């Protein structure tokens, strides 16, 4: 522990180096611990709990995927539910034809990836507002298309799948958790890879990134495709789990927004942000649901308003600000107060 004031002012390289290397490792471990804890849910034998947490983990996966394009690359895609729906309908259609469920899953992932590539090529030339609305519009257009063409055959695109056997439910739950672990690993690897640095550079200053030799266009497309695949897989799993859905459910733009909110709440461009945000918001949301009122949209809207006004940088960053070491040698209580003060300053500087 550094006690000399002078030494701390000239942040000693070796100390910082080990701290930095530990930081992402720490995030990875915390993430794994959290997911492991969640993975014990089936052991409680409570089906409604399993039901709730299956959806919560699904939302975590969606947030983690969005983080790739929205958090790390800084391109706010508002239509990622399109990939979710593609995954759902792929599984739905192929299961109805008689193919095993996992075939639909893989096909869904591939189709979504190709779709992301095709849509990404024109749309990623756009910036800011335009990109966001274009992605939003794509999802809406796709929803409309599937509804009008009545893909799924149930009228307006309704899809009804055979019920899975009862022990499929824990299996699906574990599949979601596994997917989340994979996303976590990808995020961790990404952050320290060349690809990740390119994305961060694009987010921070796209013009400077280009001046440094980064072929920004292709990295953006890559991130977009990367965000599409886990989302589609989640959609596929959902289709099998829910057995019945229509375009309005799996292409619901509220889902696009919710994954954005979750990531923002936790912290965009962080490893743990989507997980933390997902857990916090979704548990609150399900609490409200059990009380009988259909206030989900109100809760979502209100949360968005609050998060954007008060803490757009997310809880993880707030926490980092809280624990940032400044003057050494303070007592624990003083450090706590100092942390609070710093947090408040951070909020007022960035938010309001």
């Amino acid at each position: 522990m550094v006690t000399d004031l002078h030494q701390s002012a000239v942040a000693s390289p070796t100390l910082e180096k080990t701290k930095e290397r530990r930081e992402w490792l720490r995030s990875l471990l915390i993430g794994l611990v959290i997911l492991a804890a969640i993975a014990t849910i089936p052991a409680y034998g409570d089906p409604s709990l399993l039901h709730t947490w299956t959806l919560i983990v699904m939302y975590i996966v969606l947030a983690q995927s969005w983080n790739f394009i929205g958090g790390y690359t800084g391109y706010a895609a508002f239509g990622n539910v399109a990939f979710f729906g593609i995954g759902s309908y792929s599984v739905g259609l192929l299961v109805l034809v008689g193919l095993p469920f996992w075939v639909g899953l893989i096909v869904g992932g591939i189709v979504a990836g190709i779709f992301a590539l095709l849509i990404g090529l024109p749309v990623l030339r756009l910036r800011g507002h335009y990109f966001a609305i274009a992605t939003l519009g794509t999802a809406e257009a796709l929803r409309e298309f599937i509804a009008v063409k009545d893909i799924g055959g149930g009228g307006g695109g309704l899809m009804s799948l055979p019920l899975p056997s009862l022990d499929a439910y824990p299996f699906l739950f574990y599949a979601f958790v596994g997917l989340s672990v994979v996303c976590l690993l990808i995020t961790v690897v990404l952050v320290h890879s060349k690809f990740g640095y390119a994305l961060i550079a694009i987010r921070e200053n796209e013009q400077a990134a280009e001046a440094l030799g980064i072929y920004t266009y292709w990295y953006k497309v890559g991130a977009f495709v990367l965000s599409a695949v886990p989302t589609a897989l989640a959609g596929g799993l959902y289709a099998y789990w829910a057995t019945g859905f229509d375009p309005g459910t799996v292409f619901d733009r509220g889902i696009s927004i919710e994954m954005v909110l979750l990531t923002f709440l936790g912290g965009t461009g962080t490893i743990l942000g989507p997980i933390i945000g997902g857990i916090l918001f979704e548990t609150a949301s399900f609490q409200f649901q059990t009380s009988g009122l259909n206030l989900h949209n109100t809760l979502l809207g209100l949360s968005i308003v609050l998060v954007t006004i008060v803490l757009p940088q997310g809880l993880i960053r707030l926490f980092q600000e809280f624990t940032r070491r400044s003057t050494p040698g303070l007592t624990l209580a003083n450090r706590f107060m100092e942390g609070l003060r710093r947090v408040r300053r951070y909020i007022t500087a960035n938010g309001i």
Partner: protein
Amino acid sequence: MFDVISQPTAFSHVSPLERENTPYPSFLKLMDVTKRFGGLPAVDTLSFSVRRGEILGIIGPNGAGKSTVVNLISGAQPLSSGSIYYQGRDISCLLANRRAYLGIARVFQITKPFMELDVRENVLVGALFGRHQMIYSAAFRMAEELLEEIGLAHKTHFKGDQLTIADRKRLELARALATGPQLLLLDEVMAGLTPAEVTEAVELIRKINRMGITIIVIEHVMQAIKSLSDRILVLHHGRKIAEGQPETVLSDPKVIETYLGKRYAQQQDQLKQVNTDMLNEGAQYQM
């Protein structure tokens, strides 16, 4: 540290050639380059060449088009007409990132380091994506080396918003150098520096040039540009109005006129006349 004979350093790709006295083939050549914004040309049929290994200074009053020239050379903006040749190759239509890959690097006027990355990671990005497309470990080492040379080694873990202005400029410079450039474009990098920092910056730029990197410097700080440049180019309204050795250019009445107005130029003329008269008188007196 800059000894060419030592083991490969960050700059070992560039051979510090003697400056070629032959004007051809030129390292960088602009031919009738024009850039229009709407109807107004920011740069108007500009032509000039840069020799390999030299430092070319570009000066001119505000709005003369200096930054636009840098944008055009680096590829940040497309040309309206004309062409740019780099090492004999027409780069007029190439994207900025392609030009970076070919060895053109630029430092922006307003420093904008990558804020969420620390100092070392900023430079790392340059090393990973520049001319050499290094693998992670090599890029890492290169970044550390560069930071050492540039004087930021003790701040490798500082984030962008924790640096002073001078340090931010150093960081931008290090980041640009990490791409392994052969041509470096410096756009008003001395803005906001104290006189002491300016002297340091001049030294640093000379150091970089000695490694064989051709440099184009845009500046308003006359002292710096005078001591740095091998040649100076003066722009006004997007046109070249003077080109040559610093002394000649800076005492050219046309140049003085554009900076300080016609009356001042006339005053300077009169002063010069008075001085020569006095000298002659003094000489006569002596005799």
